[in-house]
């Protein structure tokens, strides 16, 4: 598939060559474990290696451990990363790298940036997300986990769910209600919650794809220091959370989107079945469109918080990822080596169901596209 001509790729040739050489020399020989302490050790070691090689946090500010490079260079790195077969970026480091870190860059204090950002990039810590609750999924603003301000601390009681990798995480981006008299979007606070604090209990949940990566998290009188933990101000949590979700729905999946385009090309090269070829042709067209849209959006979002248009691309990617894995199962057939194992297409097929759930369901993304991209009247919730 030809490159989409939206940036001066030629000027990045040396950068691309360096990335390719480094990846060829450094890709782990063993496959990535999907859950538990082994997953943590693998992910941190790989992140550490990329950081030491100068390939972590390419667009993050250099004063916090990044390299202050351009989005175009980031894209080239992701292209080479996908081409090389390096471990999926959809792993335990995803939250820290793709939306907790960017939220701290956008909304955090200098102390928070100086403390947390280098640790995320250098492979010292794992982050998880604590937004959803058993009764608050798509309706995030109805969340009930509460925090009581006591002196210079907030005391947390409540219950979060769908917190991927919470069992192996060091920190959580946690959204709670700190004003007991508030409702909906008001009175919320976005916290950095250390997962080792007394009063935190984590229960892993097995997904239908196999691994127990989802978790429930229970908070019983958990005390966090306000100065270190609160990002964006007490009671300002909704605004901070919207920044997080803008990254999650906007640019967080860029590496995965590029990887998907690469995978579709591999499927095309393996397809000899005339009954599947027409579906694959459609898939390639969608992949080419995804590539153009995601590059254009990422370049336009340089140095800022992504806009609502990110939902359009996020949804397009999510549905394409599901169709690609669906086709792969049909193409190779049950029992084929391409389907087997923890990273085979059978796992990808089942894991891809989460793409239209996580970070806002497809229905929520469509609401955002309708109301904030197309400017349609807001419906009654």
């Amino acid at each position, binding site marked *: 598939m030809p490159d989409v001509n939206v940036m001066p790729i030629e000027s990045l040739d040396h950068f691309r060559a360096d990335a390719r050489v480094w990846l060829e020399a450094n890709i782990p020989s063993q496959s990535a474990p999907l859950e538990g302490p082994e997953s943590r050790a693998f992910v941190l070691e790989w992140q550490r290696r990329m950081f030491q090689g100068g390939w972590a946090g390419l667009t993050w500010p250099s004063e916090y451990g990044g390299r202050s490079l351009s989005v175009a260079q980031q894209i080239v790195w992701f292209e080479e990363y996908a081409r090389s077969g390096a471990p999926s970026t959809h792993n335990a480091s995803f939250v820290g790298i793709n939306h907790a870190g960017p939220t701290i860059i956008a909304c955090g204090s200098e102390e928070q940036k100086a403390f947390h950002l280098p640790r995320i990039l250098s492979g010292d810590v794992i982050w998880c997300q604590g937004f959803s609750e058993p009764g608050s*999924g798509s309706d995030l603003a*109805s969340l009930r986990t509460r925090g009581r301000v006591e002196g210079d601390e907030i005391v947390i009681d409540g219950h979060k769910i769908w917190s991927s990798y919470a069992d192996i995480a060091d920190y959580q981006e946690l959204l709670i209600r700190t004003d007991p008299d508030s409702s909906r979007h008001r009175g919320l606070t976005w916290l950095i919650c250390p997962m080792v604090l007394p009063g935190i209990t984590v229960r892993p949940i097995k997904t*239908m794809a196999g691994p127990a990566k989802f978790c429930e998290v229970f908070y019983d009188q958990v005390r966090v220091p306000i100065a270190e933990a609160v990002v964006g101000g007490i009671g300002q949590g909704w605004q901070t959370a919207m920044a997080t979700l803008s990254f999650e729905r906007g640019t967080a999946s860029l590496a995965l989107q590029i990887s998907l385009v690469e995978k579709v090309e591999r499927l095309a090269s393996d397809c000899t079945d005339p009954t599947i070829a027409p579906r694959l042709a459609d898939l390639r067209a969608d992949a080419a469109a995804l590539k153009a849209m995601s590059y254009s959006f990422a370049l336009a979002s340089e140095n800022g918080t992504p806009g609502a248009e990110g939902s359009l691309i996020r949804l397009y990617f999510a549905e394409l990822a599901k169709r690609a894995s669906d086709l792969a199962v*049909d193409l190779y057939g049950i*029992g084929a080596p391409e389907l087997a194992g923890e990273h085979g297409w059978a796992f990808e097929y*089942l894991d891809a169901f989460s793409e239209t759930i996580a970070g806002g369901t497809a229905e929520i993304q469509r609401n955002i596209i309708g109301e904030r991209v197309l400017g349609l009247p807001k419906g009654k919730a």
Partner: protein
Amino acid sequence: MDFEPNENQTAILDGLEQLISSQHVEAPKEGVLVAYSASLDAELAASGFLDIAREEDFTLLDAALVVERLARLPVSAEVAFSALVGPLFPAGSVQRPFALVSGNPLAPARFLTEARTLLVDQGDELLVIDVDPSRVQHIESLFAYPYGKLASLDGLPLRKMGAELAAAVRRRWRLALAVEGAGLMQSAIDTVVDHVTNRFQFNRPLGSFQAIQHRLAMAAGKQQSARWLALRAAWADSEADCALAAGYVQDAIPTLVYDLHQFCGAMGLTLEFPLHFWTYRLKAMLGELGGSSAQARAAAVATWPDAA
């Protein structure tokens, strides 16, 4: 036309409910990737439900109703092949449970780990292989049925049968896909309707949102269509009807499975939620006999042999 069960069918289904009740068939408490019940399989065989199509005064349609009802359970047993394909063979000439594959006899097959007979559709002939369980390799799959494959055919008793029987097996295999698929769809939809009725977001049941209502209504339409096509195929037992019904089910599966999981949110992605007991199995059936486009082609050939 009569769309109500007749006296025989009512008696069969009542008896089947009693058997299901006596077996205390429940979804596994712990999440499992394969939910196969050997005890249910044995009880069904012993009680004669899998041989109904062989009995005087009973028909293939009666057997199809049994298959459809049992597909709605959260555990699987080798029902559809025994009840619908098995009667093509003289009683006692082949042993159940059955496994079926197209083309390559060494390809992975549903139920082969449990099977005593492997039927291999090779187009112009049918291989009937007596299966020695010790020769079957278990295959890890994420699609609920027990899967296995033979490492080789060396020394296994093998009979070659003619094209006519091969075509009949292929026809009944399509019927089995259609009938079982319709039953699986029904339970999957029931599970989701219950969830969206009781799960509230934005102070409303999820099922009150039109975005969900409309797509669930479409799923219900697909299921009803699939069911009646499957039952018509069982009644007619014709090439065209069986191919059409199987193709319809296979064509409906991807969208239906994705939508049903979508409406259950993250809960629907876990092994703690029962939906996967049916959707895993639907996905496993999707590609059999070449998938929906191959069934459509077969239906066209059977209906318009000159044009196709």
